[in-house]
Protein backbone atom coordinates (compact mmCIF):
# COMPACT_ATOMS: atom_id res chain seq x y z
CA UNK A 1 0.00 0.00 0.00
CA UNK A 2 2.72 2.37 1.09
CA UNK A 3 4.73 1.50 -1.98
CA UNK A 4 1.73 2.28 -4.15
CA UNK A 5 1.41 5.73 -2.68
CA UNK A 6 5.10 6.40 -3.24
CA UNK A 7 4.85 5.28 -6.83
CA UNK A 8 1.84 7.47 -7.47
CA UNK A 9 3.40 10.52 -5.88
CA UNK A 10 6.62 9.99 -7.79
CA UNK A 11 4.78 9.56 -11.06
CA UNK A 12 2.57 12.60 -10.63
CA UNK A 13 4.75 15.37 -12.09
CA UNK A 14 5.73 13.15 -14.97
CA UNK A 15 2.16 12.24 -15.87
CA UNK A 16 0.97 15.82 -15.40
CA UNK A 17 3.43 16.95 -18.06
CA UNK A 18 1.64 14.50 -20.31
CA UNK A 19 -1.64 16.18 -19.39
CA UNK A 20 -0.35 19.43 -20.85
CA UNK A 21 0.33 17.66 -24.15
CA UNK A 22 -3.14 16.11 -24.03
CA UNK A 23 -4.87 19.41 -23.38
CA UNK A 24 -3.07 21.20 -26.21
CA UNK A 25 -3.94 18.45 -28.68
CA UNK A 26 -7.57 18.25 -27.57
CA UNK A 27 -8.34 21.95 -27.55
CA UNK A 28 -6.67 22.33 -30.94
CA UNK A 29 -8.59 19.38 -32.34
CA UNK A 30 -11.93 20.61 -30.97
CA UNK A 31 -11.60 23.97 -32.67
CA UNK A 32 -10.29 22.53 -35.89
CA UNK A 33 -13.24 20.14 -35.78
CA UNK A 34 -15.60 23.06 -35.25
CA UNK A 35 -14.27 24.88 -38.27
CA UNK A 36 -14.57 21.78 -40.39
CA UNK A 37 -17.81 20.51 -38.87
CA UNK A 38 -19.96 23.61 -39.29
CA UNK A 39 -19.49 23.96 -43.07
CA UNK A 40 -19.88 20.21 -43.42
CA UNK A 41 -23.20 20.28 -41.57
CA UNK A 42 -24.48 23.24 -43.54
CA UNK A 43 -23.38 21.58 -46.75
CA UNK A 44 -25.20 18.40 -45.82
CA UNK A 45 -28.46 20.16 -45.02
CA UNK A 46 -28.61 22.98 -47.52
CA UNK A 47 -26.09 22.12 -50.21
CA UNK A 48 -26.96 21.01 -53.74
CA UNK A 49 -26.57 17.31 -54.32
CA UNK A 50 -22.92 17.49 -55.35
CA UNK A 51 -21.95 19.32 -52.17
CA UNK A 52 -24.07 16.97 -50.12
CA UNK A 53 -22.34 14.02 -51.71
CA UNK A 54 -18.89 15.47 -51.09
CA UNK A 55 -19.63 16.28 -47.47
CA UNK A 56 -21.12 12.84 -47.09
CA UNK A 57 -17.97 11.32 -48.50
CA UNK A 58 -15.81 13.21 -46.04
CA UNK A 59 -17.95 12.12 -43.11
CA UNK A 60 -18.06 8.56 -44.35
CA UNK A 61 -14.30 8.38 -44.71
CA UNK A 62 -13.30 10.03 -41.46
CA UNK A 63 -15.92 8.26 -39.38
CA UNK A 64 -15.34 4.98 -41.15
CA UNK A 65 -11.61 4.59 -40.90
CA UNK A 66 -10.23 3.86 -37.43
CA UNK A 67 -8.34 6.82 -36.05
CA UNK A 68 -5.24 4.71 -35.61
CA UNK A 69 -5.18 3.98 -39.31
CA UNK A 70 -5.76 7.65 -40.07
CA UNK A 71 -2.89 8.62 -37.82
CA UNK A 72 -0.60 6.17 -39.60
CA UNK A 73 -1.86 7.21 -42.99
CA UNK A 74 -1.33 10.90 -42.44
CA UNK A 75 1.77 10.94 -40.27
CA UNK A 76 3.81 8.31 -42.04
CA UNK A 77 2.23 8.78 -45.43
CA UNK A 78 0.43 11.90 -46.61
CA UNK A 79 2.16 14.53 -44.49
CA UNK A 80 5.54 13.16 -45.53
CA UNK A 81 4.46 12.96 -49.13
CA UNK A 82 3.55 16.63 -49.28
CA UNK A 83 6.74 17.51 -47.45
CA UNK A 84 4.98 18.55 -44.25
CA UNK A 85 7.39 17.75 -41.46
CA UNK A 86 5.20 18.03 -38.41
CA UNK A 87 6.03 16.90 -34.93
CA UNK A 88 3.93 14.17 -33.41
CA UNK A 89 1.70 16.43 -31.33
CA UNK A 90 0.88 18.77 -34.22
CA UNK A 91 0.21 15.88 -36.55
CA UNK A 92 -2.02 14.16 -34.00
CA UNK A 93 -3.91 17.40 -33.39
CA UNK A 94 -4.60 17.85 -37.08
CA UNK A 95 -5.72 14.27 -37.63
CA UNK A 96 -7.88 14.29 -34.51
CA UNK A 97 -9.36 17.62 -35.62
CA UNK A 98 -10.17 16.41 -39.11
CA UNK A 99 -11.82 13.31 -37.69
CA UNK A 100 -13.73 15.27 -35.11
CA UNK A 101 -14.96 17.56 -37.88
CA UNK A 102 -16.81 14.62 -39.37
CA UNK A 103 -18.43 13.75 -36.04
CA UNK A 104 -19.18 17.33 -35.08
CA UNK A 105 -20.89 17.87 -38.42
CA UNK A 106 -23.44 15.24 -37.46
CA UNK A 107 -24.13 16.96 -34.18
CA UNK A 108 -24.66 20.30 -35.91
CA UNK A 109 -26.74 18.68 -38.61
CA UNK A 110 -29.10 17.28 -36.00
CA UNK A 111 -29.47 20.68 -34.39
CA UNK A 112 -30.08 22.47 -37.66
CA UNK A 113 -32.77 19.98 -38.58
CA UNK A 114 -34.50 20.48 -35.27
CA UNK A 115 -35.11 24.16 -35.91
CA UNK A 116 -38.53 25.08 -37.24
CA UNK A 117 -38.64 25.77 -40.94
CA UNK A 118 -40.20 29.19 -40.35
CA UNK A 119 -36.94 30.59 -39.01
CA UNK A 120 -35.18 30.27 -42.34
CA UNK A 121 -38.26 31.44 -44.19
CA UNK A 122 -38.52 34.58 -42.12
CA UNK A 123 -34.84 35.35 -42.68
CA UNK A 124 -35.18 34.87 -46.41
CA UNK A 125 -38.27 37.03 -46.46
CA UNK A 126 -36.19 39.86 -45.01
CA UNK A 127 -33.86 39.63 -47.97
CA UNK A 128 -31.10 37.71 -46.26
CA UNK A 129 -29.05 35.54 -48.54
CA UNK A 130 -29.02 31.90 -47.53
CA UNK A 131 -25.45 32.29 -46.33
CA UNK A 132 -26.34 35.21 -44.13
CA UNK A 133 -29.51 33.57 -42.88
CA UNK A 134 -27.56 30.49 -41.93
CA UNK A 135 -24.86 32.51 -40.23
CA UNK A 136 -27.02 34.90 -38.29
CA UNK A 137 -30.25 32.98 -37.71
CA UNK A 138 -29.74 29.24 -38.08
CA UNK A 139 -26.29 28.70 -36.64
CA UNK A 140 -26.72 30.81 -33.50
CA UNK A 141 -29.71 28.67 -32.62
CA UNK A 142 -28.26 25.39 -33.84
CA UNK A 143 -24.95 25.86 -32.05
CA UNK A 144 -26.77 26.47 -28.80
CA UNK A 145 -28.58 23.19 -29.23
CA UNK A 146 -25.27 21.49 -30.09
CA UNK A 147 -23.55 22.16 -26.80
CA UNK A 148 -24.52 18.84 -25.18
CA UNK A 149 -23.30 16.95 -28.23
CA UNK A 150 -20.17 19.00 -28.20
CA UNK A 151 -19.41 18.02 -24.64
CA UNK A 152 -19.65 14.38 -25.71
CA UNK A 153 -17.25 15.01 -28.52
CA UNK A 154 -14.88 16.76 -26.17
CA UNK A 155 -14.74 13.88 -23.76
CA UNK A 156 -14.23 11.42 -26.60
CA UNK A 157 -11.40 13.34 -28.22
CA UNK A 158 -9.83 13.80 -24.85
CA UNK A 159 -9.49 10.07 -24.60
CA UNK A 160 -8.80 9.43 -28.27
CA UNK A 161 -5.82 11.69 -27.90
CA UNK A 162 -4.16 8.76 -26.16
CA UNK A 163 -3.77 7.19 -29.58
CA UNK A 164 -1.41 10.00 -30.47
CA UNK A 165 1.21 7.92 -28.73
CA UNK A 166 1.66 5.72 -31.78
CA UNK A 167 3.15 8.81 -33.36
CA UNK A 168 5.38 9.26 -30.35
CA UNK A 169 3.45 12.02 -28.60
CA UNK A 170 3.98 11.23 -24.98
CA UNK A 171 0.72 12.17 -23.38
CA UNK A 172 -1.13 10.98 -20.28
CA UNK A 173 -1.83 7.41 -21.30
CA UNK A 174 1.64 6.72 -22.70
CA UNK A 175 3.26 7.99 -19.56
CA UNK A 176 0.88 5.99 -17.41
CA UNK A 177 1.86 2.86 -19.28
CA UNK A 178 5.53 3.59 -18.83
CA UNK A 179 5.25 3.98 -15.11
CA UNK A 180 2.97 0.95 -14.80
CA UNK A 181 5.38 -1.25 -16.74
CA UNK A 182 8.31 -0.16 -14.61
CA UNK A 183 6.59 -0.48 -11.27
CA UNK A 184 3.99 -3.20 -11.88
CA UNK A 185 1.45 -0.95 -10.22
CA UNK A 186 -0.98 -1.33 -13.09
CA UNK A 187 -4.27 -0.92 -11.32
CA UNK A 188 -3.30 2.10 -9.19
CA UNK A 189 -1.71 3.81 -12.17
CA UNK A 190 -4.69 3.24 -14.43
CA UNK A 191 -7.09 4.35 -11.78
CA UNK A 192 -5.17 7.57 -11.27
CA UNK A 193 -5.03 8.15 -15.01
CA UNK A 194 -8.78 7.64 -15.01
CA UNK A 195 -9.08 10.22 -12.26
CA UNK A 196 -6.97 12.64 -14.25
CA UNK A 197 -9.07 12.13 -17.38
CA UNK A 198 -12.14 12.46 -15.28
CA UNK A 199 -11.01 15.80 -13.90
CA UNK A 200 -10.16 17.09 -17.35
CA UNK A 201 -13.50 15.93 -18.75
CA UNK A 202 -15.31 17.32 -15.80
CA UNK A 203 -13.70 20.73 -16.14
CA UNK A 204 -14.68 20.86 -19.81
CA UNK A 205 -18.17 19.55 -19.23
CA UNK A 206 -18.79 22.00 -16.41
CA UNK A 207 -17.60 24.86 -18.58
CA UNK A 208 -19.89 23.72 -21.41
CA UNK A 209 -22.83 23.27 -19.05
CA UNK A 210 -22.28 26.80 -17.81
CA UNK A 211 -22.14 28.03 -21.39
CA UNK A 212 -25.30 26.09 -22.19
CA UNK A 213 -27.12 27.74 -19.29
CA UNK A 214 -25.82 31.17 -20.16
CA UNK A 215 -26.92 31.11 -23.76
CA UNK A 216 -30.16 29.21 -23.22
CA UNK A 217 -33.03 30.62 -25.24
CA UNK A 218 -36.21 31.10 -23.28
CA UNK A 219 -39.20 29.06 -24.35
CA UNK A 220 -37.85 25.55 -24.70
CA UNK A 221 -38.61 22.61 -22.47
CA UNK A 222 -37.36 23.44 -18.95
Amino acid sequence: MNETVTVLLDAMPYVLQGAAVTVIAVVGAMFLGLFIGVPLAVGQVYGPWAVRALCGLYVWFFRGVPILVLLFLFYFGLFNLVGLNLNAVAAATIVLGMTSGAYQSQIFRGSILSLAKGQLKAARALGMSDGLAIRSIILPQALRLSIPGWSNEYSIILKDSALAFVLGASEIMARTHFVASRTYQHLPMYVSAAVLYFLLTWAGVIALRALEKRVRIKGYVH
Partner: protein
Amino acid sequence: MNEEFVFLLERLVPALNKGVLVSVQLIVPSALLGIFFGVIVGACRAFGGGILQAVANGYAALFRGTPLVIQLFILYFGLPGVGIYFQPYTAAVIGFTLCSAAYHSEYIRGGLLSIKRGQELAAQALGFSTFTTLVWIIIPQAFRRALPGCGNEIVYLIKYSSLAYVITCFELTGQAKIVASESFRFSEVFMVVGVYYLVLVSVASYGLRRLEKRLEIPGFGH
Protein backbone atom coordinates in the same frame (compact mmCIF):
# COMPACT_ATOMS: atom_id res chain seq x y z
CA MET B 1 3.20 -10.31 -55.04
CA ASN B 2 1.94 -13.82 -55.16
CA GLU B 3 3.21 -14.39 -51.67
CA GLU B 4 1.39 -11.31 -50.49
CA PHE B 5 -1.77 -12.63 -51.97
CA VAL B 6 -1.39 -16.00 -50.32
CA PHE B 7 -0.75 -14.32 -47.00
CA LEU B 8 -3.85 -12.22 -47.46
CA LEU B 9 -6.11 -15.07 -48.43
CA GLU B 10 -4.84 -17.86 -46.24
CA ARG B 11 -3.71 -16.11 -43.14
CA LEU B 12 -5.20 -12.66 -42.79
CA VAL B 13 -8.72 -12.88 -44.14
CA PRO B 14 -9.73 -16.03 -42.21
CA ALA B 15 -8.39 -14.53 -39.00
CA LEU B 16 -10.14 -11.24 -39.59
CA ASN B 17 -13.39 -12.94 -40.50
CA LYS B 18 -13.25 -14.78 -37.22
CA GLY B 19 -12.60 -11.48 -35.49
CA VAL B 20 -15.30 -9.54 -37.23
CA LEU B 21 -17.86 -12.08 -36.10
CA VAL B 22 -16.88 -11.45 -32.50
CA SER B 23 -16.94 -7.71 -33.15
CA VAL B 24 -20.49 -7.86 -34.44
CA GLN B 25 -21.52 -9.97 -31.47
CA LEU B 26 -20.10 -7.27 -29.24
CA ILE B 27 -21.44 -4.26 -31.11
CA VAL B 28 -25.07 -5.15 -31.76
CA PRO B 29 -26.20 -5.87 -28.21
CA SER B 30 -24.10 -3.04 -26.80
CA ALA B 31 -25.54 -0.55 -29.27
CA LEU B 32 -29.14 -1.55 -28.60
CA LEU B 33 -28.75 -1.69 -24.84
CA GLY B 34 -26.75 1.52 -24.92
CA ILE B 35 -29.50 3.44 -26.67
CA PHE B 36 -32.15 1.96 -24.43
CA PHE B 37 -30.39 2.94 -21.23
CA GLY B 38 -29.18 6.18 -22.80
CA VAL B 39 -32.75 7.32 -23.33
CA ILE B 40 -33.66 6.48 -19.75
CA VAL B 41 -30.60 8.17 -18.29
CA GLY B 42 -31.00 11.17 -20.59
CA ALA B 43 -34.61 11.59 -19.49
CA CYS B 44 -33.61 11.35 -15.85
CA ARG B 45 -30.91 13.95 -16.39
CA ALA B 46 -33.25 16.40 -18.07
CA PHE B 47 -36.41 15.83 -16.06
CA GLY B 48 -35.74 13.63 -13.06
CA GLY B 49 -35.83 15.55 -9.83
CA GLY B 50 -33.37 15.50 -6.93
CA ILE B 51 -31.69 12.18 -6.25
CA LEU B 52 -32.57 10.59 -9.58
CA GLN B 53 -31.10 13.47 -11.53
CA ALA B 54 -28.01 13.60 -9.35
CA VAL B 55 -27.38 9.87 -9.70
CA ALA B 56 -27.91 9.98 -13.46
CA ASN B 57 -25.63 12.99 -13.80
CA GLY B 58 -22.99 11.31 -11.69
CA TYR B 59 -23.18 8.17 -13.77
CA ALA B 60 -22.83 10.10 -17.01
CA ALA B 61 -19.96 12.15 -15.66
CA LEU B 62 -18.12 9.06 -14.48
CA PHE B 63 -18.47 7.03 -17.64
CA ARG B 64 -17.89 9.91 -20.01
CA GLY B 65 -15.06 11.14 -17.88
CA THR B 66 -12.90 8.05 -17.79
CA PRO B 67 -11.31 6.16 -20.66
CA LEU B 68 -13.24 3.14 -21.80
CA VAL B 69 -10.12 1.02 -21.70
CA ILE B 70 -9.78 1.74 -18.01
CA GLN B 71 -13.45 0.93 -17.41
CA LEU B 72 -12.91 -2.37 -19.14
CA PHE B 73 -9.70 -2.94 -17.26
CA ILE B 74 -11.41 -2.42 -13.95
CA LEU B 75 -14.39 -4.60 -14.93
CA TYR B 76 -12.15 -7.42 -15.97
CA PHE B 77 -8.91 -7.20 -14.00
CA GLY B 78 -10.09 -5.13 -11.07
CA LEU B 79 -13.38 -6.70 -9.99
CA PRO B 80 -11.82 -10.11 -9.27
CA GLY B 81 -10.23 -8.27 -6.36
CA VAL B 82 -13.71 -8.16 -4.79
CA GLY B 83 -14.60 -11.62 -5.99
CA ILE B 84 -16.52 -10.77 -9.17
CA TYR B 85 -15.33 -12.71 -12.20
CA PHE B 86 -16.77 -11.81 -15.61
CA GLN B 87 -16.16 -13.64 -18.83
CA PRO B 88 -14.26 -11.43 -21.28
CA TYR B 89 -17.28 -11.19 -23.57
CA THR B 90 -19.64 -10.32 -20.73
CA ALA B 91 -17.27 -7.74 -19.33
CA ALA B 92 -16.89 -6.16 -22.75
CA VAL B 93 -20.62 -5.92 -23.39
CA ILE B 94 -21.25 -4.52 -19.92
CA GLY B 95 -18.46 -1.99 -20.36
CA PHE B 96 -19.56 -0.93 -23.83
CA THR B 97 -23.20 -0.62 -22.79
CA LEU B 98 -22.45 1.45 -19.71
CA CYS B 99 -20.13 3.78 -21.56
CA SER B 100 -22.31 4.09 -24.64
CA ALA B 101 -25.41 4.82 -22.59
CA ALA B 102 -23.59 7.68 -20.88
CA TYR B 103 -22.82 9.29 -24.22
CA HIS B 104 -26.27 8.65 -25.66
CA SER B 105 -27.76 10.23 -22.57
CA GLU B 106 -26.03 13.50 -23.38
CA TYR B 107 -27.29 13.55 -26.95
CA ILE B 108 -30.78 12.68 -25.76
CA ARG B 109 -30.62 15.36 -23.09
CA GLY B 110 -29.72 17.90 -25.75
CA GLY B 111 -32.61 16.68 -27.89
CA LEU B 112 -35.03 16.87 -24.98
CA LEU B 113 -34.05 20.42 -24.24
CA SER B 114 -34.59 21.45 -27.85
CA ILE B 115 -38.30 20.70 -27.72
CA LYS B 116 -40.51 23.74 -27.45
CA ARG B 117 -42.31 24.07 -24.18
CA GLY B 118 -45.69 24.20 -25.88
CA GLN B 119 -45.48 20.49 -26.62
CA GLU B 120 -45.13 19.68 -22.95
CA LEU B 121 -47.92 22.07 -22.01
CA ALA B 122 -50.31 20.62 -24.56
CA ALA B 123 -49.70 17.09 -23.31
CA GLN B 124 -50.18 18.06 -19.71
CA ALA B 125 -53.34 19.90 -20.57
CA LEU B 126 -54.68 16.61 -21.93
CA GLY B 127 -53.98 14.92 -18.65
CA PHE B 128 -50.72 13.22 -19.52
CA SER B 129 -48.56 12.59 -16.48
CA THR B 130 -44.95 13.74 -16.57
CA PHE B 131 -43.92 10.21 -17.38
CA THR B 132 -46.38 9.62 -20.22
CA THR B 133 -45.65 13.08 -21.61
CA LEU B 134 -42.03 12.07 -21.79
CA VAL B 135 -42.63 8.68 -23.31
CA TRP B 136 -45.21 9.61 -25.90
CA ILE B 137 -44.64 13.24 -26.73
CA ILE B 138 -41.23 14.54 -25.78
CA ILE B 139 -38.92 11.56 -26.28
CA PRO B 140 -40.20 10.63 -29.76
CA GLN B 141 -39.44 14.15 -30.91
CA ALA B 142 -36.20 14.45 -28.99
CA PHE B 143 -34.96 11.11 -30.25
CA ARG B 144 -35.37 12.22 -33.84
CA ARG B 145 -33.33 15.31 -33.12
CA ALA B 146 -30.67 13.39 -31.23
CA LEU B 147 -30.40 10.70 -33.88
CA PRO B 148 -27.48 12.18 -35.84
CA GLY B 149 -25.56 12.48 -32.58
CA CYS B 150 -26.51 9.00 -31.46
CA GLY B 151 -25.28 7.85 -34.85
CA ASN B 152 -21.89 9.26 -33.92
CA GLU B 153 -21.92 7.25 -30.74
CA ILE B 154 -22.74 4.05 -32.58
CA VAL B 155 -19.90 4.67 -35.00
CA TYR B 156 -17.61 5.29 -32.05
CA LEU B 157 -18.84 2.10 -30.44
CA ILE B 158 -17.98 0.13 -33.55
CA LYS B 159 -14.47 1.45 -33.44
CA TYR B 160 -14.06 1.25 -29.70
CA SER B 161 -15.17 -2.35 -29.75
CA SER B 162 -11.53 -2.97 -30.67
CA LEU B 163 -10.64 -2.36 -27.05
CA ALA B 164 -12.20 -5.68 -26.15
CA TYR B 165 -8.92 -7.34 -27.04
CA VAL B 166 -7.33 -5.67 -24.01
CA ILE B 167 -9.48 -7.86 -21.82
CA THR B 168 -8.70 -10.92 -23.94
CA CYS B 169 -11.82 -10.88 -26.05
CA PHE B 170 -10.11 -11.22 -29.40
CA GLU B 171 -12.22 -9.48 -31.99
CA LEU B 172 -11.24 -7.83 -35.25
CA THR B 173 -8.39 -5.67 -33.98
CA GLY B 174 -7.16 -8.38 -31.64
CA GLN B 175 -6.91 -10.89 -34.45
CA ALA B 176 -5.23 -8.29 -36.60
CA LYS B 177 -2.66 -7.58 -33.93
CA ILE B 178 -1.79 -11.25 -33.64
CA VAL B 179 -1.36 -11.64 -37.38
CA ALA B 180 0.50 -8.37 -37.67
CA SER B 181 3.03 -8.97 -34.96
CA GLU B 182 3.61 -12.53 -36.07
CA SER B 183 4.18 -11.56 -39.67
CA PHE B 184 5.34 -8.05 -38.92
CA ARG B 185 3.27 -6.71 -41.75
CA PHE B 186 1.72 -3.98 -39.70
CA SER B 187 0.91 -1.62 -42.54
CA GLU B 188 -0.73 -4.23 -44.74
CA VAL B 189 -2.70 -5.77 -41.92
CA PHE B 190 -4.01 -2.51 -40.59
CA MET B 191 -4.95 -1.25 -44.03
CA VAL B 192 -7.10 -4.34 -44.45
CA VAL B 193 -8.51 -3.92 -40.95
CA GLY B 194 -9.31 -0.34 -41.88
CA VAL B 195 -11.36 -1.64 -44.77
CA TYR B 196 -13.21 -4.02 -42.45
CA TYR B 197 -14.11 -1.19 -40.09
CA LEU B 198 -15.05 1.02 -43.00
CA VAL B 199 -17.51 -1.63 -44.12
CA LEU B 200 -18.96 -1.99 -40.63
CA VAL B 201 -19.32 1.77 -40.24
CA SER B 202 -20.79 2.11 -43.73
CA VAL B 203 -23.44 -0.46 -42.95
CA ALA B 204 -24.26 1.29 -39.70
CA SER B 205 -24.31 4.75 -41.32
CA TYR B 206 -26.57 3.48 -44.06
CA GLY B 207 -28.93 1.98 -41.53
CA LEU B 208 -28.94 5.17 -39.48
CA ARG B 209 -29.66 7.30 -42.52
CA ARG B 210 -32.52 5.02 -43.45
CA LEU B 211 -33.88 5.26 -39.94
CA GLU B 212 -33.58 9.04 -40.03
CA LYS B 213 -35.45 9.19 -43.33
CA ARG B 214 -38.13 6.87 -42.04
CA LEU B 215 -38.66 8.93 -38.94
CA GLU B 216 -38.61 12.24 -40.80
CA ILE B 217 -41.68 14.31 -40.09
CA PRO B 218 -43.30 15.37 -43.37
CA GLY B 219 -43.24 19.09 -43.95
CA PHE B 220 -40.97 19.73 -40.96
CA GLY B 221 -37.58 19.27 -42.60
CA HIS B 222 -35.54 21.90 -44.34
